[in-house]
């Protein structure tokens, strides 16, 4: 096999206030014709920058050194004409979030045909025929109908298949896929990866697969290259499967069904949303349907489900950000079915339950320093003296593994993991009896996820705060919860002890979720039970 793509000591530096900042340091690797190579690394490791360098889409002002050769030609030395031909015909790219990479006001068919008509000189009819065939190949059902639809009418999985079809349209030799399934549910990820693998093998296409998930890369690639801090390293990073392999945590408190010791009791919870159907008529959509559960004092319950399963709606109802349509939520024996009356009731409810969100950037006021955010929470609930307040802020920072100097930091200067720790510290500042964690680790790197999960376990052991841990990822659940509730389309499909469910799921949907989590030796599969 000859090398199709070759990176030779590629260096990239981006302009920064203090002078050029090196983001890629002597990156060298190759991709042979028809070979699949995985490029694995945490966020900020330079994997996306490498991909952008290969198609010469670097940010303005970037300084580039070293060489990139494609089929023997130097990519960095190409003139405008050659670069256009290279981008049009030789390489293609698929990105993480299909929704932001497709024009929302144009039909899918127009989007797909555009490149063929413009760069390959195809007629409209021939182009349509070709993209219809490609959509069939990438597993999009009813391709003719999809061509007439707009992007918002397609699901995330379907849209990513459309993007892959678009990438294949001009018959490239190399496909660069940058985290193509990260924005998708695990089951959809499995299906899309299986399809991508099949299509690639059938066409003899070379693939550069960029991901933060080592096991996922190992499942579809012949070889993996690991990056850290802009350079290629030999060591093996923390993999997602490692989280699954961890020994299950022993229950801190025995599970109990009795309501005597429950922190939280939810019974017959329903939430309906008004939606306007295709015919323009209004109807009620049940996001949560007859959900009942209880969390014992100091216990931890995980609610697992894919997007649209109603898990976030449940989280918001528990902390009072939304009201239930029917059913009751009882926290520490007090019902929460109506909004709080007056300032003192707001404060009391604040002491009962707190929440940490997925989006760590927007969870903190961008104008408020971390110490001030913690101080604001302390002032509201405890009215401490300035000295007490300083001491508590220091304790809280210490408790979530932040340094004292982080107190004066603005959220934007922190990393994602640090921001999530700060949000956690703010929630813990009021010493809540229940903490709702809504996908609180989902936007973090696998290794950061592991650290935060360990931290959560330690905090629960130390303070006895009960958790409702909401996640789409069964793999992380084992570390924090002794009981799991699997949710699908607003209904509970399975519940029980975490260990039992992970070892022997009884519901086919739970099994499907579990089988879709990449781990060593895992292969993506096309699944019969759901349609992506």
């Amino acid at each position: 096999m000859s090398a199709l793509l070759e990176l030779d000591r590629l260096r990239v530096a981006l302009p920064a206030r203090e002078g050029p900042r090196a983001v890629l340091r002597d990156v060298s690797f190759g991709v042979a014709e028809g070979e699949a190579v995985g490029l694995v690394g945490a966020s900020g490791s330079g994997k996306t920058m490498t991909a952008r360098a290969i198609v010469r889409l670097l940010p303005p002002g970037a300084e580039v050194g070293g060489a990139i050769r494609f089929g023997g030609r130097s990519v960095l030395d190409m003139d405008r004409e050659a670069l256009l031909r290279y981008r049009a015909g030789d390489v293609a790219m698929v990105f993480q979030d299909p929704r932001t990479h497709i024009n929302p006001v144009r039909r899918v068919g127009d989007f797909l045909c555009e490149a063929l008509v413009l760069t390959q000189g195809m007629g409209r009819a021939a182009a349509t025929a070709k993209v219809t065939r490609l959509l069939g190949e990438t597993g999009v059902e009813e391709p003719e109908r999809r061509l007439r639809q707009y992007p918002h009418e397609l699901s995330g999985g379907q849209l990513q298949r459309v993007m892959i079809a678009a990438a294949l349209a001009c018959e490239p030799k190399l496909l660069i896929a940058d985290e193509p399934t990260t924005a998708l549910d695990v089951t959809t990820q499995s299906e899309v990866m299986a399809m991508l693998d099949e299509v690639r093998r059938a066409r003899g296409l070379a693939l550069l697969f960029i991901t933060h998930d080592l096991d996922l890369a190992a499942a579809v690639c012949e070889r993996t290259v690991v990056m850290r801090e802009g350079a290629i390293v030999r060591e093996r990073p923390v993999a997602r499967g490692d989280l699954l392999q961890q020994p299950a945590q022993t229950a801190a408190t025995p599970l109990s069904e009795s309501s005597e010791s429950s922190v939280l009791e939810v019974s017959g919870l329903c939430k309906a949303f008004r939606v306007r159907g295709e015919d323009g008529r209004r109807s009620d959509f049940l996001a949560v349907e007859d959900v009942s559960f209880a969390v014992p004092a100091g216990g931890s319950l995980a609610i697992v489900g894919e997007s649209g399963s109603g898990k976030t709606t449940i989280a918001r109802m528990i902390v009072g950000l939304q009201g239930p349509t029917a059913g009751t939520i009882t926290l520490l024996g007090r019902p929460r079915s109506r909004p709080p009356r007056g300032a003192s009731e707001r404060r009391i409810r604040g002491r009962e339950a707190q929440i940490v969100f997925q989006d760590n950037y927007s969870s903190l006021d961008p104008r408020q320093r971390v110490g001030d955010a913690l101080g604001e929470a302390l002032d509201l609930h405890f009215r401490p003296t300035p000295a007490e307040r300083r001491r508590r802020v220091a304790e809280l920072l210490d408790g979530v593994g932040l340094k004292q100097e982080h107190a004066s930091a603005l959220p934007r200067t922190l990393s994602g993991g640090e921001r999530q720790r700060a949000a956690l510290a703010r929630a813990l500042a009021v010493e809540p009896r229940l903490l709702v964690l809504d996908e609180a680790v989902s936007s973090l790197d696998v290794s950061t996820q592991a650290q935060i999960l360990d931290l959560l376990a330690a905090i629960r052991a130390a303070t006895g705060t009960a958790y409702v841990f909401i996640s789409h990822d069964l793999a992380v659940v084992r570390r924090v919860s002794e009981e799991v509730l699997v949710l699908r389309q607003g209904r509970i499909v399975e519940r029980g002890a975490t260990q039992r469910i992970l070892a022997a799921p009884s519901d086919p949907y739970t099994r499907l979720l579990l089988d879709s989590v990449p781990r060593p030796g895992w292969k993506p599969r096309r699944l019969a039970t759901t349609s992506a």
Partner: protein
Amino acid sequence: MTPQPVRALLHAASRNRLTAACVVFLALVVLVAVFAPLLAPHSPTEVNLSSAYLGPTLEHPLGTDASGRDILSRVMWGARSSLLGPLGVIALALAFGVSIALAAAWFGGWVDTGISAVIDVLFSFPGLLLAIVAVAVFGVGLLAPALAIGIAYTPIMARIVRSSALRERELPYIAAASVLGLPARRIVWRHLLPGVWPLIVAQVTVMFGYATIDLAAISFLGLGQQPPSSDWGLMVAEGRPAILAGHSAQALYPGIALVLVVLCVMVLGRRLGDRADDWEGVAPRLSRGRRGP
């Protein structure tokens, strides 16, 4: 309320000569307005018919008008009402527009529907006509037109702030503050308002420019400041007949002052608007809502 707009402006000025020139010019105008009694070489109202229509001399650098008054002194004094009027307009539009917009965004539901309806109704009031009605009711001067134009600008401010505040309100940090148990008043003033502040500042500068022009137009029509005031709009109106007689200075200089002030304010407004994103370093927000790293 926050030094950030000032810092952002100074930063922009250090990068761009045009911005710097605008900042310096406006600062000068404000200084002249404040210290007009000390700086003006002559009284703005002292009539001396024997020295009418003098050309530029050392004693009268911009010449004199039909009544022999020193034009430079009149332009300097005129800066006061020409700046004060628009400031009043802005204060009014800010106070009403921002409060109803924040109320609409915070409460949502029928409160938002009601406020939005009121905003739509206010939008149908043409500013100048409203000002003429106000003058008819309250009499000529600075107050009535400023009040009327302020009311006419309120819905513009309200609509812009509302849409931005609605977006900001949906962010998790507002939800987190609410779960924490913070009183609504504090969340709105300490978290929601600062979130839309950059936009308000940019909007205020643009409005200042428009308000200056609208008030000058009202003075020009004879409904605003009355003689012997040296309001710029009024000076242009009074100088108009003299232009035909070949004495253009009386209308020209206040006209130039008006154009320059409005131009500078507009330039700064656009700069602030362009740079609003820089204030909080909006870049990491682009990754909002992604699930993967």
